[in-house]
């Protein structure tokens, strides 16, 4: 193992992943991603939802196969689930009908380990991870933090060399997540786990900076490696350390840069014109964000990390909101800052009805899909149009799933801006408002 010629633990070689009908067309989730993982490091895949980070993790674990490229684990090509790679899930994914002990034992027993041996190893893992006393509890009896500990114990018990973690802390509350992170880091630093390397997916920038030795920032749509950042700070790391803060700010800036480049164009979202995939953002959140930035202490210009902290939003929630505001020309994003435009400032001062009017105007002016729906409704004598018509049109540009979310978003925004009405029962747009 100490042999210099030994292959790296994991090589992700030019991996691509497409979804959609047929192999030629369809949306690209991962676009030629290459990455090498060595023993002794924690590597974080950081990116927003839709950047394909979870897909990449599933390809590495052998659960999915890539459309192009390959993954090599210890020099061997991965074609299915591999011994020596264990995974921790965001949703814990425990079998509710098995006790804590039985859940932990399962992986060993499935491999045919003798009963006594499996029990011994399981009890050991339970002990390491701090679950003593809960052996006979069922998952529904214990708290979320304890459940995820079971998830860790279950992964550790099969003595993996590589541990994959799919947003393991994001379903937990802030305090529990922090305890679990620290405990895991302690075990890692003290070398009490059999693991050689950890690959974790996260959308939480601070979490990545706290835990990882290397952070891979993925851009969305399609997922590409946008940047690779080494973190050399010693564990345990201090969140208040200026170096820590600086790094967090730098990553924020990195992640807003693409949006900044796109300000001249139609927006930050993938695709152009009609084919722009829109995120699910409620109009209340949009209005709330404008108000927050307009008010003291920001007075129209806010630092995104600070804003995220004060609103208790993670980047997965924050970025879509900020970018929607940018698309609608209510705000501009630059170097990790958000700055309200004149329209944005005006919006903050208006009453309910005028806000809706302003929002509707901007929607028609800057979102091509909204324009299209309105024009079709105006042109038709009946002022009615089925939603399927637009959905099919969108599916020429994007996957069914994205088409669905995009249409849903534009429907919600259009209803708020009162530029058209939508009837759920008949699934059709119209110009008439219910009396």
């Amino acid at each position, binding site marked *: 193992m100490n042999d210099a010629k030994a292959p790296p633990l994991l090589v992700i070689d030019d991996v691509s992943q497409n979804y959609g009908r047929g192999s030629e067309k369809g949306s690209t989730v991962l676009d030629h991603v290459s990455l090498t993982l060595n023993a002794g490091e924690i590597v974080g895949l950081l990116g927003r939802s839709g950047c394909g980070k979870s897909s990449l993790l599933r390809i590495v674990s052998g*659960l999915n196969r890539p459309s192009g490229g390959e993954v090599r684990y210890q020099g061997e090509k991965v074609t299915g689930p591999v011994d020596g790679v264990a995974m921790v899930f965001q949703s814990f994914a425990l079998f*509710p009908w098995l006790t804590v002990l039985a859940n932990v034992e399962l992986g060993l027993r499935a491999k045919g380990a003798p009963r006594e041996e499996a029990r011994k190893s399981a009890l050991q893992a339970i002990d390491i991870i701090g679950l003593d006393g809960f052996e006979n509890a069922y998952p529904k009896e214990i708290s979320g933090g304890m459940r995820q500990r079971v998830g860790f114990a279950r992964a550790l018990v099969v003595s993996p060399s590589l541990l994959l973690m799919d947003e393991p802390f994001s379903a937990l509350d802030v305090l529990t997540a922090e305890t679990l992170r620290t405990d895991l880091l302690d075990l890692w630093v003290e070398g009490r786990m059999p693991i050689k390397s950890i690959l974790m997916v996260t959308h939480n920038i601070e979490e990545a900076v706290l835990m990882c030795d290397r952070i891979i920032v993925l851009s969305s749509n399609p997922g590409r490696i946008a940047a690779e950042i080494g973190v050399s700070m010693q564990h345990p790391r201090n969140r208040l350390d200026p170096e820590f803060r600086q790094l967090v700010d730098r990553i924020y800036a990195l992640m807003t840069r693409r949006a900044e480049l796109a300000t001249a164009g139609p927006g930050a979202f993938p695709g152009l014109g009609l084919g722009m995939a829109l995120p699910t953002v409620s109009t209340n959140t949009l209005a709330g964000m404008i108000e927050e930035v307009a008010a003291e202490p920001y007075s129209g210009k806010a630092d995104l990390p600070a804003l995220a902290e004060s609103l208790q939003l993670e980047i997965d929630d924050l970025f879509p909101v900020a970018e929607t505001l940018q698309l609608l020309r209510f705000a501009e994003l630059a170097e990790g800052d958000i700055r309200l435009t004149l329209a944005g400032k005006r919006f903050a001062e208006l009453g309910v009805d005028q806000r809706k009017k302003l929002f509707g105007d901007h929607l028609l002016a800057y979102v091509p899909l909204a324009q299209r729906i309105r024009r079709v409704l105006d042109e038709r004598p009946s002022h009615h149009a089925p939603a399927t018509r637009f959905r099919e049109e969108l599916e020429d540009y994007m996957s069914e799933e994205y088409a669905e979310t995009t249409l849903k978003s534009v429907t919600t925004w259009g209803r708020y801006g009162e530029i058209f009405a939508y009837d759920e029962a008949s699934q059709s747009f119209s110009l008439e408002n219910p009396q």
Partner: protein
Amino acid sequence: MTLDRYALLSRSQVRLPNLWDVAAFVLVLGVFVLMSYGSRGMTTPLSAAQATGVSLDYQYLPYYGLRTTLRMFAAICVSLVFTFTYATLAAKSRRAEMALIPILDVLQSVPILGFLSFTVTFFLRLFPGSTLGAECAAIFVIFTSQAWNMAFSFYQSLRGVPRDLEEVAANFGLTPWQKFWQLETPFAMPGLIWNMMMSMSGGWFFVVASEAIAVGDVNIRLPGIGSYLALAIDERRIDCVAAAVVAVALIILAYDQLLFRPIVAFAEKFRVELTASQTPAESWVRDLFLRTRWLRRSMRPLTRLLSWVALLPMRLPPSRGPAGEPDPHRRALFDFVWYVILITAFCVSLGLTLDFLHRSIDAAEVRHVALLTFYTFLRVSALIALTTLIWVPIGVWIGLRPRVAEKVQPLAQFLAAFPANVLFPVAVIGILHFHLNPNIWLSVLIVFGTQWYIAFNVIAGANAFPNDLREAAQNFRVKGWDWWKSVILPAIFPYYVTGAITASGGSWNASIVAEYVKWGDDRVTAEGIGSYIAQATDVGDYPKIVLGVAAMSIVVILVNRLFWRRLSVFAETRLRLL
């Protein structure tokens, strides 16, 4: 940690059996003795006197009850085997699914009693001269009343296993066999058990109808409650009918207490919800077993054996995985061949059926049957509507009062399980005595047994109505018709649809026995497709039976597709709370 292990060891060091052991042991022993006693009679030659001779003496009733119980038990076991194979195949193989699921859907809608005559002749020929043939026929009828919805539920559960759990199974390299027992079956368990209970309560209706078999010149009475009842009807013994009613009630209660309560309480842990449920199911039998020492210990080798089998790394044919099949061209070719096979099978069976019917059925007969089907359709629709009008307000009233509901709900479920056909003779006596119009009054029998499904589902719906919505309605003073229309009816609608679908399907089946009822030599008939099938069965006129069953099946399928399924989709998408 070592301390903890020590504690585990000492806890399992069990010395003496406790009192609970004695009680549970006697219980288990009793069940075994009864089973061997009851099953002895199953294989006697048909000619032997005690094989088919049924006596109206009360003292034989417990024995008959035992035989009936065993028949039910055998049927539910066969249903389970069927569920595990048929539904698994459909869920794992895309091609099998194409054929199996529509077939299952149709089988669900076919009136089982109509087929009694076919299965009886088939099984009698399979075991000539032995009661086993008739036993099998009876068990098969019960099986057909139980299996379909169990298989459906299992299939749906298998297709709906949460993705993350699937991924864990793949990540730990579970083989398909291991995955089936560790993940898929436990996940399907709550749905399967609920459907098993529903099947069981439906089955009582058919056990009563299937024990006394009279098809054409074949006349067999298998010892059991159903035969006892049939004989009581033939001999006009109302006291024996009453005794049979009591016996059936006791058996249903025993089944519920000894078998289903423990299973439901046990199945609680298979629910995939990560919060403990507020009202855990309880069962004194399960508690008794959990308190025993020796008995639990003696079961340990068995549970170990089972878990060992479940963890065997058996390689089964690969199921549909994320990878899919390698070669799209080969796949298309296989698909094509499969389609050809399916279409050929379809054409051959259609040809055979038409040929069979063509020999003795003319167009006039078909028109006659169509008219009769329409009559029964009217009857079933009108009565479902009527029971709806009666039970929805009552059910809502009960359901909104938790204390009342707590007491009434088990009763309604019990009544739904109770085979209403046991009480039909009483109706005949009434109709004959008061010279009533059978076309109207026999109709009531059709929903007599099935109305309870509507009742207890509505009660459950009203019971589950969220308190905050109730308070909001009160706060805004929503009253009268507005309250019904906007508050409670939408809330109970999904539950009502579930109950009404069961009730409607059951009513069609019931029409075969309800439109043609006997009391001694008196026969009361209502005009309809049910009595048409029943009369054809009496004389063994097979083409007419096929025609009648086909007509009824088509209407049932159409009603389900065009009416109930739409309502249920509407309820699912628009009216589901949360």
